[in-house]
């Protein structure tokens, strides 16, 4: 199966894929929940009990006004206060590349959640490789749209890197998907052949 179709319900393809992994009625924590699109979607479609963590006051206020349960704060410290296994799923969507201590955060995610779901832009996509090879500048792609001097991404991660990281840090990959997205990530498809070269994002479900 290489093409997965989702109904067009207004949220990004990668988030729809993450949502498809979540059991209905479960408890979910979304780290860096932004405008709360994923949480809202999960609440409506999967009846989850959701909580979000977000740094920006405006986004937090928007989420709470929408009826979501959201805490304003830094994900690295906010995860420390939850009890063990407080959630069925802890989602870290497209944020791992911005985290200062990824191993610490993954450790916390798996302490407070039965499952972690981690996604990140794949730095070994062929466009990234080609740009660096042919132009010699730091790559800029739709998934990594920043110049080197204004990027919030402090780390470059590839799908293979994350797989090796799981062995080095010591957590299990339960499920994974490599996806290729278009149209500002609204549409996309699963990549099974040469994922590290062809996928724009990697998505992993992990456990202790």
């Amino acid at each position, binding site marked *: 199966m290489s093409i997965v179709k989702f109904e067009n319900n207004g949220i990004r393809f990668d988030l729809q894929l993450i949502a498809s992994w979540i059991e209905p009625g479960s408890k979910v924590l979304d780290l860096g929940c932004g405008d709360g699109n994923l949480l809202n979607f999960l609440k409506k479609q999967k009846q989850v009990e959701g909580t979000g963590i977000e740094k920006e*006051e405006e986004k937090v206020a928007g989420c709470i006004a929408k009826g979501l349960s959201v*805490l304003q704060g830094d994900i690295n410290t906010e995860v420390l206060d*939850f009890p063990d296994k407080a959630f069925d799923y802890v989602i870290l969507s497209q944020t791992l590349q911005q985290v200062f201590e990824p191993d610490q955060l993954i450790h916390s995610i798996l302490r407070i959640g039965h499952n972690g779901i981690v996604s990140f832009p794949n730095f070994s996509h062929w466009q990234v490789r080609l740009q660096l090879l042919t132009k010699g500048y730091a790559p800029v792609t739709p998934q990594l749209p920043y110049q080197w001097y204004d990027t919030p991404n402090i780390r470059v991660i590839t799908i293979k890197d994350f797989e090796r990281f799981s062995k080095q840090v010591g957590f299990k990959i339960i499920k994974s998907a490599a996806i290729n997205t278009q149209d500002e990530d609204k549409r996309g498809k699963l990549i099974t052949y040469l994922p590290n070269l062809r996928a724009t994002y990697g998505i992993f479900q992990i456990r202790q």
Partner: protein
Amino acid sequence: MSEYIENDPQGISVGLVEKRFFTFAEPPHGMVLECGTRLGPITLAYETYGTFKGNNAVLILHALSGDSHAAGYYSPEDPKPGWWDMMVGPGKGIDTDKYFVICPNILGSCMGSTGPSSIIPKGDRAYGLDFPVVTIGDMVMAQKKLLDYLGINKLLSVIGGSIGGMQVLEWAVRYPEMITSAIPLATTTKHSALAIAFNEVARQSIMADPNWNGGDYYSGAKPSLGLAVARMIGHITYLSDESMRLKFGRRLQDKNDFSYNFDADFQVESYLRYQGTKFVERFDANSFLYITKAADYFDLGLQHGDGSTVRAFSKTRAKFLVVSFTSDWLYPTYQSKAIVRALKKNGIDVSFCEIEAEWGHDAFLLPSERLTALIKGFLDRVYREI
């Protein structure tokens, strides 16, 4: 808080409202207070807005100098509405078309409820210092009696800021089975040494006024100077460096040069004097002493969790919305975050937002689209989810 009250710019209001009174705890039984004394009878002044539908009751709890008049007008000629009129009314943050709102005046106050200025039962004088020292817990116990009388055994939400927020926290752990949700604003589980220090200076100012006379002044001149200075001190703690710089700076009041005497030269001096004098007209000095003491004594963790706030909150199942303000240095954000942390450790559904505001502690009383949207959205959700 009265200095901020404005008529709604769109003219939206809950309309004419009435202050009611409920008296209970008749002697000899009275109500046993946390200090061990029996007090009775006790009267609470309260107001209600909207229609009770069984599951839509919202309890609003006021701060130090507030009263039961949260919204609306007492008469068509009334120049100003209640103290939280911008938040409470039809279609507002706390929507009186949807919710049944109850706002009681706290025990120990002087705005219609029993306090040190009330007349002693079968006596001919006010309690003065014979009034027992009441606590936040006593205030909440009295409010529970009022709700029993009104036939309300479940609250959709309990909302309050500052000392009102302390009562919110007390409600959540004292009567957890009654509370569906709680909104503590700009508050704390316990006063810092800084907050106690300011309260103590304010109390000393009252007690140093010769007219205070050991609290026995109701038949003569009041300790107006002492209370005015107490209010001035309070006011400074409710503002912030930034808000005072914006509001007053070093501007002079009605003059171009210094007077070279001790008149009010600066606008900030004139403002504080005015606020102090105005406060004396409506507030009782002894009530100020009692309520600030109750706030200083409040320690949720000590009183309900053997010293642990986490354990104290283990009794509640309510959903929480905690809000702090960036420039509030009386109840700084770290104190709200401590509440949030303790709730999280109990696995409680909690939302938290730190609102960027320059107005210091008083920000919770000022019109804020953000605060309104937060409260409205949160209440909508908890009402939908019951």
